[in-house]
């Protein structure tokens, strides 16, 4: 993937496919300590230890119509080549936690890319899921939770309204821009 925000979408899509009702995405970036950590926690069906052991094998997939799953193996390679790594903890019936770490300043680290579009994609296609997004950049924090948004707009159906989605997209985009100091367009 050319952007980390696309990897994030791919990981969250895995959570959705696992039947999760609650998904927490946390991104933490620190320039001084030189790290970027992405954590996705879900309460989906989880995996047993045997499956977790082979999860990075490209020939491991839960898909019924294909034989390869390249999302996680490629992401691991990318993270490891950028001074980081990936950890997966999972319990069958409980859920999964995926933690991806990068050295922030590594020259090969893919850019974050259009994170606002990733967030909006998750909300627009799964308005009934409790999705929370916390993003910390050098001490500044932006939080968003679809549970709170649903309380404001009434219900999940209202979150399918395109006017509301457009507003949410702009809202997330503006706040991400502020996190990065207002100069960059979130493509850090």
């Amino acid at each position: 993937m050319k952007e980390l925000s696309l990897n994030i979408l791919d990981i969250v899509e895995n959570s959705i496919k696992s039947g999760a009702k609650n998904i927490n995405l946390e991104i933490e970036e620190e320039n001084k300590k030189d790290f970027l950590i992405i954590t996705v926690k879900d309460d989906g069906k989880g995996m047993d230890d045997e499956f977790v052991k082979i999860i990075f094998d490209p020939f491991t997939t839960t898909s019924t119509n294909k034989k390869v799953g390249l999302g996680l193996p490629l992401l691991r390679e990318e993270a490891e080549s950028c001074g980081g790594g990936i950890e997966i903890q999972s319990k069958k019936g409980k859920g999964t936690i995926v933690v991806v770490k990068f050295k922030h300043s590594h020259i090969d680290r893919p850019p974050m890319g259009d994170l606002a579009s990733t967030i909006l994609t998750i909300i627009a296609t799964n308005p009934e899921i409790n999705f929370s997004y916390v993003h910390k950049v050098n001490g500044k924090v932006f939080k968003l939770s679809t549970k709170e948004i649903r309380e404001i707009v009434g219900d999940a159906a209202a979150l399918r309204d395109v006017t509301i989605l457009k507003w949410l997209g702009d809202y997330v985009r503006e706040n991400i821009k502020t996190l990065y100091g207002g100069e960059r367009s979130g493509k850090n």
Partner: protein
Amino acid sequence: MEKIKSIEELRKLREHARESLKVRSGEAKVKIMVSMGTVGIAAGARDALMAIISELEKRQFHDAQIVERGSLGLDKEEPVVAVERDNKTVFYGKVTPEMAREIVAQHVINGQIVSEWVIAKE
């Protein structure tokens, strides 16, 4: 500098959403499905979806429901967008944001299938 939006502004849009949902009683007239598997995402499904939302908003068309579906196994054709309208489902392949906007204008809103981009029908 433009003032940052406040989440409270969303309350004002709530009424708007209620009105549009009232107009559209029951099931939406059109269902738009975007394939969100790993290959679809890598090929540009997210950007196609953003273009769809933007075009629906621009044209103030509220009678459509956007849903995602897993990979159809048509990796070579990703991003795949399917439009279900009038009891027919039409699949479009290699959908760019520009194509997505055209599909919304022609097919989703006006019911005219964009034949040249169709890869399958159901």
